[in-house]
């Protein structure tokens, strides 16, 4: 019985770990044409909230998002200070007032990496373990 309890607790913990992520589990990536190798948290927030279209070094940037999942939720919470619902409302408010567009949104890490690799100025985020061939990783300060 005790072994069963331990097993059940371990299973629950494992499931919870699988569906949540933290900032440490996320890599911020950029197209190689982006000059910067690091970005401040404020700059990153500005890029994804469409208040910044370039980084400090002058590189033009545009955000790329993941559709949903633990990496997306962790990124939105940790770096943008919003829930996904609030972020979608924010983007729609830009779209329906003409002050911005819906950012590119892709389903999975591999698609994000592939898009960022081929799109000048693209900045996105993937899980820490994702392959990042063809893109550069930005350190978030």
């Amino acid at each position, binding site marked *: 019985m005790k072994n069963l309890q331990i097993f059940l607790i371990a299973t629950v913990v494992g499931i919870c770990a699988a569906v949540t992520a933290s900032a440490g589990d996320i890599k911020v990536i950029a197209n190689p044409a982006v000059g910067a190798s690091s970005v401040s948290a*404020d700059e990153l927030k500005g890029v994804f909230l469409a208040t910044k279209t370039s980084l400090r070094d002058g590189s033009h940037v545009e955000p790329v998002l993941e559709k949903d999942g633990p990496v997306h939720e962790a990124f939105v919470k940790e770096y943008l200070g919003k829930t996904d619902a609030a972020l979608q409302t924010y983007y729609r408010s830009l*779209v329906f007032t003409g002050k911005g567009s819906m950012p590119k949104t892709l389903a999975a890490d591999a698609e994000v990496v592939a898009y960022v690799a081929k799109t000048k100025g693209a900045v996105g985020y993937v899980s820490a373990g994702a392959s990042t061939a063809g893109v550069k990783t930005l350190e978030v300060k």
Partner: protein
Amino acid sequence: MQVKTIVLAAVLSVGPSLLHAQFDFRVDNRDVQVHSFASQGFMYSNDNNYMTMPTSQGSFAMTDGGVNASVQLTDKFRVGAQEYLRDFGRMGEWHPQLDWGFADYRFRDWFGVRGGKVKTELGLFNNTQDNDSLHTFALLPQSVYPTDLRDATIAHIGGDAYGNIPIKHLGSLSYTVFVGDRRDSKFGGYSLMVQDRGITISNYGGLQYGGDLKWTTPLKGLLVGGSHLSEVVTGTGKTTCNQAKASVNCAMWTAMTNGNYEEYSKKAYSNYFFGEYTLGNLRVDSEYRRYWRDQAVWNGLWAVWSDTRGYYASAAYRISKRFELGGYYSRFTCKWVSGGIGPNGPATKPPSLDTSLPGNHIYDKVATLRFDIAKFWNIKVEGHFMDGYGTNQSPDGFYDTTNTQGYKPKTNLLLVRTGWSF
């Protein structure tokens, strides 16, 4: 229920299953994004009729929708336009209008310009008030965002300068300054209000200018700000001058004007102060608006001075992925004075300065449940418990022609509204 409403509601019910995402296409190797939104509402009130609808019998005459297209032509330059129509009782009447259409050049993140027909940045929600999907509430607090006075503030034909300025360790400032021409629809609340007095407005609008400043503070989740709008508004039209409703001597006035009506601003401005705090799934908003209007009416023979003040405090909490609960208390008051101008003007009416009178205030307590059926489709159930019916000097949801029996001091209203956005 009108056939148009039934057809639109049916199409919009089927549409979401077919169109669950924005529509993009490419022109000359550039992405053109197309988005749309729509909503359908039902109102039922216990006594007084609201928003020009026969709500005491139940009314579905609350439909609106819009579609836009936009394209980023270069890294700094974008263009786009949005068409909008609505039918809210006698307001809108399905007449489509250009909601916004402008070119936007962003020189730097701290300085950009827009020119064309631009949604006006005032307060937290002025420029998004038409978009049901963006809000917890089916009806925004009417003390600050009166939907029947939408035309007065929603957009200007002119230009903006705008930008976002980071302030090290102190957050960031987002500013907009604007100037342009306001042009009201003939199917807006003010035109309907004066129509009740026998005046048919054919043209109403004029110069508007002002600004908005929002401070994203260093305290995580807190935003505060203020806005100002000044305007010089002129209205022209016709009237047969019904002496029972007119403020002037009709025989004298008709002899002077031959039935051609005119009014103009002597002084008119609005000030907004607002704050918003978000913490996880909780959002708290509060705003205050003061609208001062000193208007010469009846071709300069009569003057109306009104001091309208409104504020609200709201809270909304997303209790799950699909459910959100919210509530607000909204308080609207209006003091007014009207009287003849000049030695030959008619006698001044007694001023109405007592805002405790039900005809000079609307206090509204609201509770809302929002259910997100899907990311693009929501339904809201909302209860309004109103004390007062406002004033005949400013459109405020209660109109004489739909309340010919007179007004009861309190109104309870059920509002069910469903909305889609793509």
